[in-house]
């Protein structure tokens, strides 16, 4: 009992501290998908199956955290003119690692996801965080920021997959959950379902999440 009383304010304090705040801001207030509109391609492409979505989220968090920490560690040695290409190379290196790991341990999923694992390289979340945060903050703080943006991305992707897979295939993680008479909505599996589903999630997200700055996105 006493433990809990002590632990709770400590956790709260941590979230109000610098690293916790950096992470929390990325997950909720400045969510990469529904606020900053970054990393949309993979959000649409892999969310028709929850399994692929989970693999994609894990891959993105790994690449985002590792690449941004390296970029942050190199920030004083990178000449400004070549920093884009340096960032891309660091990111591409980690994507190669992820690609080989997925091919080795989840071959079926790697075939279904096809080019989208490689396309993590051009996922704007990673480049965006590298440019906006990692290139001017310490390695420790960058870790929390990158973890936060990765988690913010994952939360939205998993929510979309939780809608698309049951409606589109009648299954969840390959296990049938819909009643026998349920007619699958093929639309949810196909591209239009992805666009409309994400559009609705952006709507919900923007309506309920607190707003930080008014962006002129009209």
């Amino acid at each position, binding site marked *: 009992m006493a433990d809990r009383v002590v632990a709770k304010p400590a956790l709260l304090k941590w979230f109000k501290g610098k690293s916790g705040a950096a992470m929390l801001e990325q997950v909720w207030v400045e969510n990469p998908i529904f606020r900053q509109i970054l990393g949309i391609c993979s959000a649409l492409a892999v969310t028709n199956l929850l399994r692929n979505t989970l693999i994609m989220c894990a891959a993105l968090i790994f690449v985002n955290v590792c690449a941004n920490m390296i970029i942050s560690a190199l920030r004083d040695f990178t000449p400004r003119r070549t920093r884009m*290409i340096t960032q891309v190379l660091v990111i591409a290196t980690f994507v190669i690692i992820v690609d080989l790991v997925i091919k080795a341990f989840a071959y079926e999923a790697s075939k279904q996801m096809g*080019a989208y694992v490689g396309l993590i*390289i051009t996922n704007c979340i990673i480049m965006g965080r590298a440019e906006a945060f990692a290139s001017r903050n310490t390695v420790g703080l960058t870790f929390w920021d990158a973890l936060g943006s990765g988690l913010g991305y994952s939360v939205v992707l998993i929510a979309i997959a939780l809608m698309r897979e049951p409606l589109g295939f009648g299954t969840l993680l390959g296990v049938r959950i819909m009643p026998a008479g349920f007619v699958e909505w093929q639309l949810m*599996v196909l591209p239009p379902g992805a666009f409309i589903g994400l559009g609705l999630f952006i*709507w919900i997200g923007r309506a309920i999440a607190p707003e930080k700055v008014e962006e002129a996105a009209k």
Partner: protein
Amino acid sequence: MDIGGLVAAAKSADVGGAAPYIIFIAAIFTNNILLSNFLGMCSFLAISRQIRASFGLGMAVTFVLTMTSTINWLLNHYVLVPLEVEYLRFITFIIVIAALVQFVEIVIERFSPALYFALGIFLPLITVNCAILGVCLFMVIRSYTFAQAIGYGIGSGLGWTLAIVAIAGIRNKLRFSNVPEPLQGVGITMILAGLMAFAFMGFAGMVDIK
């Protein structure tokens, strides 16, 4: 329908025998890179407010796509595969794209200032446009021949242009509509893109590249 899914099946479709012009048409209509493969969304959402800018960016993407798909196909076929270093594909492709965009920018600035002012601001954006890397990766995964790869590159560029210009046209009209506030901007554009993808599915039987 198998769990593997329609989408996955369509993406890894074996197109071995299709003629390059069939792939060209398919890349514009039935397998549109934006509406069926979701590539190039970031610049699509940012730019599709004005028709003119959309068209400029579309042309720049088409140009870069044609060149990168050619160069990357040659590199992949004559360097990476014989040396058995296919795992370096991502790094090679992204360097080629970045270098090429830089090079194109310099050449255009030197020889055609008018074109540079028309395209100039869009060129740096293209390096991180996932449509470019996506087309290069798809062309390898689907093992296209050289002619097929070029057809696919040009077709994808034109298809992307078609989609972005069409959406820009709709967004222009949308200014006078009463859209709920949180849905404005990106949200409604996604739903529009969904309806357009739905419409493009009507082309499905036109050419079959399976």
